[in-house]
């Protein structure tokens, strides 16, 4: 038998995906958002507070609090709490992000009342004793030590500390060791009280034909009690703007330092982790969609310019990416890769050249169309399961995007022209403002990176505490 291959199929155009249309109801102080996933066996319930670590007044308190929620209650120690959760087939989780906190559970639908009761126990009667806080602190310090030994995490931490210096975002993913050591049990108790006193958004994702949303809301409000108000927080400001530290207009300027290189010494490293970028507009900036398309051309998919040059042409990396880390009140453009140590200087030159060529003469129509298609046509994957759907909607709510606006970004991406993408890149991708973080072997790299081409060199030999 000889090989016979069918002809290449003709291109087809997929139908536009319709985003879910959540229901929104008010139940006392609670906003109840329901997202229907027909025939889903599982249900996901989350309490969402638009308050994250950028809002904390005591650095590290929200991190320790999130470690203590969903792990034990006044009655159930961690072991018994774990057994109780497992016996329900449930997963309970507290999640802390820069601008949001959530406490949630996913479970088979008929066990939701018991699982939700366990979750509400965790919120209303957490173990925030001095012993529990000390243990959480010790674990957080161990985890921080572990993160900073990872060259990727160390690169990220160094990057955000430099480009967001002077704002709460400059703290990095976890609080410093000194800050964690200073948090008291009273601080944690106050923080828990402030969460309980602030009405969360209740997000319920599952087969709404079989879930009584109001009954779920009633179960929550009954446990949270009359102290819950729509604006009852004790130690946290109303929003990122009002604490006087987080810019509110979504147009965070790049720091005025110009180009610079920060070389973090990692003795004997066989690769250099590169994190390059600068502050950028927030998620709510009108250029967000166009900027995202442009960065997808630069470093989104496999066939993006950075990946093709560094991986497929030069063979000096396993992969490269460009992101717009777009938060509610702040953002950053971040290019990432890891290259073999002896190709570090070459990689920086190549990245500089690729970025320059993207900004002028700019992306082609075909590149923008490919990036648009890549971004838009993956949307259904974000709603494939209950968990995917809940993650997508919770992320949007955390960014201040209303449940009725889930499809707006896709519409903006669909409409953006190549000229608009090019203009957005001109405005927001600025080589002259690049902070270049290199986590690698300074003994091998300091001389060649000290030539000033990418800005003045700062060598950091001791990692952050």
């Amino acid at each position: 038998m000889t090989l016979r291959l069918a002809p290449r199929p003709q291109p087809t155009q997929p139908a536009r995906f319709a985003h879910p249309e959540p229901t929104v109801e008010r139940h006392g102080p609670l906003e109840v958002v329901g997202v229907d996933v027909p025939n889903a066996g599982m249900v996901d319930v989350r309490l969402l507070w638009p308050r994250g670590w950028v809002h904390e007044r005591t650095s590290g308190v929200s991190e320790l609090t999130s470690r203590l929620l969903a792990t034990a209650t006044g009655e159930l120690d961690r072991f018994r709490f774990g057994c109780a959760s497992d016996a329900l087939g449930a997963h309970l989780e507290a999640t802390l992000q820069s601008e949001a906190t959530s406490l949630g559970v996913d479970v088979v639908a008929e066990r939701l009342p018991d699982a939700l009761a366990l979750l509400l126990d965790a919120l209303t009667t957490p173990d925030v004793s001095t012993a529990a806080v000390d243990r959480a602190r010790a674990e957080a310090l161990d985890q921080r030590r572990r993160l900073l030994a990872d060259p990727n995490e160390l690169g990220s931490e160094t990057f955000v500390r430099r480009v967001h210096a002077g704002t709460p975002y400059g703290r990095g993913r976890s609080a410093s060791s000194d800050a964690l050591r200073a948090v008291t049990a009273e601080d944690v108790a106050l923080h828990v009280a402030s969460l309980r006193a602030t009405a969360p958004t209740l997000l319920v994702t599952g087969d709404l034909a079989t879930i009584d949303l109001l009954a779920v809301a009633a179960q929550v409000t009954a446990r949270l009690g009359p102290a819950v108000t729509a604006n009852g927080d004790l130690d946290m400001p109303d929003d990122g703007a009002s604490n006087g530290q987080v810019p509110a207009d979504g147009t965070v300027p790049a720091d005025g330092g110009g180009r610079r290189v920060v070389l973090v010494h990692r003795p004997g490293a066989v690769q250099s982790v590169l994190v390059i970028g600068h502050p950028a507009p927030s998620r709510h900036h009108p250029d967000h969609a166009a900027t995202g398309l442009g960065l997808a051309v630069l470093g989104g998919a496999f066939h993006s310019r950075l990946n093709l040059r560094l991986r497929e042409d030069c063979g000096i990396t396993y992969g490269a990416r460009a992101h717009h880390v777009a938060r509610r009140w702040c953002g950053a453009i971040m290019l990432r890769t890891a290259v073999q140590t002896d190709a570090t200087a070459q990689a920086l030159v190549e990245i500089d050249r690729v970025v320059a060529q993207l900004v002028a003469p700019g992306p082609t129509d075909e590149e923008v169309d490919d990036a648009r298609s890549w971004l838009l046509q993956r949307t259904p994957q974000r709603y494939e399961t209950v968990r995917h759907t809940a993650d997508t909607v919770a992320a949007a709510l955390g960014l201040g995007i209303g449940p009725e606006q889930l499809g707006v970004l896709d519409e903006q991406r669909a409409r953006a022209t190549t000229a608009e993408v090019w203009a957005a890149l001109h405005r927001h991708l600025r080589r002259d403002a690049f902070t270049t973080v290199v986590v690698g072997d300074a003994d091998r790299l300091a001389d060649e990176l000290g030539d000033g081409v990418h800005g003045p060199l700062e060598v950091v030999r001791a990692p952050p505490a």
Partner: protein
Amino acid sequence: MSAPTAAATRLPAATGDRAIVTHRLDNGLRVVVEEDRRVPLTAVNLRYDVGSRDEEPGRTGFAHLFEHVMFEGSRNVAAGEHFATLQAAGATLNATTSFDRTTYYQTLPSTHLELALWLEADRMGSLDLTEETFENQRAVVKNERRQSYDNQPYGDTTERLYALAYPAGHPYHHLPIGCMDDLDAATLADAARFHRRWYGPETCVLSIVGDVGLAEGIDLAERHFGGIPSLGGAPPHPPATLPPTMPAPTRDEVTARVPAPQLTIGLRVPRDDESPTHDAVDVLERVLGRGRGSRLYRALVIERQLVQPSTSLLRCGHLRGDATLLVARVRARSGVELGEVEAAIEEVLAEVAGEGITAGELERVRMMGHRAHHLGLATVAARADRYGQVMTEHDDLEHAFDTPARLDAMTLEQVTEAARRWLVPHNRAVVTHVPTPDPEDPR
């Protein structure tokens, strides 16, 4: 609220009323199609029955390197075009190589299903490599090794553990990533030979799951893969047979730039053939080391506060061709010596080996297993992968759905017997990492 007891109800059965069909083309390709119209997505998964266990001496890492070059051109597809075409079509795609198999997978809008099948058929039936593309992928794979292993704290753990637990010459003695010298030694001629030997209809299961009709899926498979010649039979895998347990403990003690002491213990256990013998080990894994209700979590994290918390202190491997490993991997809390940690682990293992587990523990594990099974089949991609696995190993699709029933049938006696047989003290390969006493490196 008091701790709820495990109730009789279970997570919904994953099988449900699935519309699913299996089919074998004349050239030997096995095809699974499942129709699921809930989301306009389709997953395409090709599982080739070849992995690092099939590599020739001096060519470690080759199966994985070859996985990379499969994206570098075929008769009608230029180098790099495969990825670019599918990503522009909104696909999420990649490939993975393990000890026992190589999998190529994509999830994409269902309107592009035929495009994915055409691309996969083109590279199954033909390769069009150049020295340039081969050299490039060799360099990329070497950087993958640096990124994932050589430049990571504890990155050598698994490589050291498998080298201890499997004797030199055994197919599982080396990891799929291979070693740099062998990657350097690979040639373009090796790639052509590897493709001719292992990449054909008889070594592959094609699974199509999602927004596709059953007849449509089979027709598309026939159309695009039916013209690919058979290999003349699936080649045999190299023989691999080990004694059921390790005869004596072995150790590898490492001093390295790591942030905390780490202890890794591997126990040889029966291969994962989804039989009751292996299922009992899976139960032990969860009782001992999965979740906050496990024995190791209780002893090491909560009561003695010796190790950093993890809800996965113990993991059972899933090697199919020979014995697999049950691996405990823990990092000590600040100021804790590894000797104390190891003694505490041994105490827990001895307790279970001597006394077995409780009915409550078995019930907890059943609930965890039901949940994992349900979530493990939740996406079209996960189901396509699972179907490829069970068809490769059992040629019986029912295995994809019988995990809950097998768990329900498991008895305390079976688990206790497994503990008695496999947790014995001599059945250990141990790797320790201790931080370098370097004053310039406080990590």
